[in-house]
């Protein structure tokens, strides 16, 4: 998992799409809001973080060593002359060429200690997703599911997308069979 936090939305989305172009298998979450950065951290336990220099102070509250995160500091412009700066973190310059940005991404993904691919839990459902599967299997609509679980209909749709991606099961009947086989519902409830 990669997290990207940059306050400028155009730069943010630009970098997100470059990461996608570099490594399609990599999962990304991103934000342009300062107050969401630490939240994303605790939610995903990322292996690589691209974070804008103006957000760097937020990292003080995160135990980087414990998380084994590879932090890349995003800086708007390359300084005219290379000064001896803080070299604790990797750096990505926003005004760099496409190929060197991609090289930077590739290197950091490769060097990150935690690999997304081998993460066993990536494909198992979260508790919330399980309850959504349960609701789907009981034949409820998105609106009903949203009301029952106290979430927005939009969130229900996001959960459904993630469930389909994780399980490789798309249809309601397919999810129902899945729910029964995994004891998320009993046959008698149907």
């Amino acid at each position, binding site marked *: 998992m990669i997290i990207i936090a940059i306050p400028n939305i155009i730069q943010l989305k630009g970098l997100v799409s470059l990461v996608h172009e570099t490594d399609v298998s990599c999962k990304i979450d991103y934000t342009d809001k300062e107050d969401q950065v630490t939240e994303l951290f605790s939610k995903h336990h990322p292996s690589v973080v691209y974070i804008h220099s103006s957000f760097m102070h937020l990292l003080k509250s995160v135990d980087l060593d414990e998380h084994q995160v590879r932090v890349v500091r995003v800086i708007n412009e390359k300084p005219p002359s290379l000064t001896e700066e803080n070299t604790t973190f990797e750096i990505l310059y926003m005004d760099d060429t496409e190929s060197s940005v991609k090289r930077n991404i590739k290197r950091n993904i490769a060097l990150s200690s935690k690999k997304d691919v081998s993460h066993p839990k990536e494909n198992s459902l979260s508790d919330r997703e399980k309850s959504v599967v349960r609701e789907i299997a009981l034949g409820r609509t998105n609106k009903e599911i949203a009301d029952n679980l106290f979430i927005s209909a939009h969130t229900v749709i996001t959960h459904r997308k993630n469930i389909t991606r994780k*399980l*490789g*099961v*798309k*249809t309601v*009947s*397919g999810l129902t*069979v*899945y729910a*029964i*086989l*995994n004891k998320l519902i009993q*046959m008698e409830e149907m």
Partner: protein
Amino acid sequence: MADAIHFNYLLLPVINRLGVQLGFGDSSIEQICYDEQIDLDLFLVIINAFLDHDINKISQLQKVSIEKVITYLKATHQYYVEQLIPEVENRINALIQHSDIDQKQFLLVKNFFEEYKEEFYTHIQLEEKTIYPYVVDVYQSFQSGDLSKDLIQKIKSHPIDTYAKEHTDIESKLFDLKNILIKYLPKTKDSFLRNTVLRALFELENDLNDHSRIENMVLVPLIGDMEVSLMKKHLQ
């Protein structure tokens, strides 16, 4: 002809549907088509479309008469209904009878497939009773230049595009069923019978994909163009 089968055995039902049965000796495709009075162009285009998913190859079907393509598509339906679907059912039944674990769970698969079958048959009915006759009507009207009021009404209310989406749900269900068998049914001591079900499902999927490729890439655009030109003529 034999070389084609050795190249890809999944062609077996395809050549059957086109009217070729096994036991043809060393005859070439051309010879067999001549002997069996099969349209050689149709034969080659269908076989090539099946083997090579390239749109350019498939769109060569447009050269062949629409009626013949429809006859072929109907023959594929017949193959699904009379042979492939019953075969899947038999294999699922064998799986249920011979498995060492909770039968209830395998019954879920059976029910799921039943549901799929119902939907699939409804879809086939829709195609044979409504869509194909409509396609032939448009085609004939385009050829002859006679445009009936009834057909104008149909073109307006249900152009061919509206049918194009029909396939997706059928495909999704089949996809789900495969994953349930591969990933989510509990382990058994031996997977042999489960493999046989899956093999039949993969074959069905592969064949269906070919079927919908022909419909979506050949029939829909071709008839869509004819609809437009017929309506233009009508408005003049």
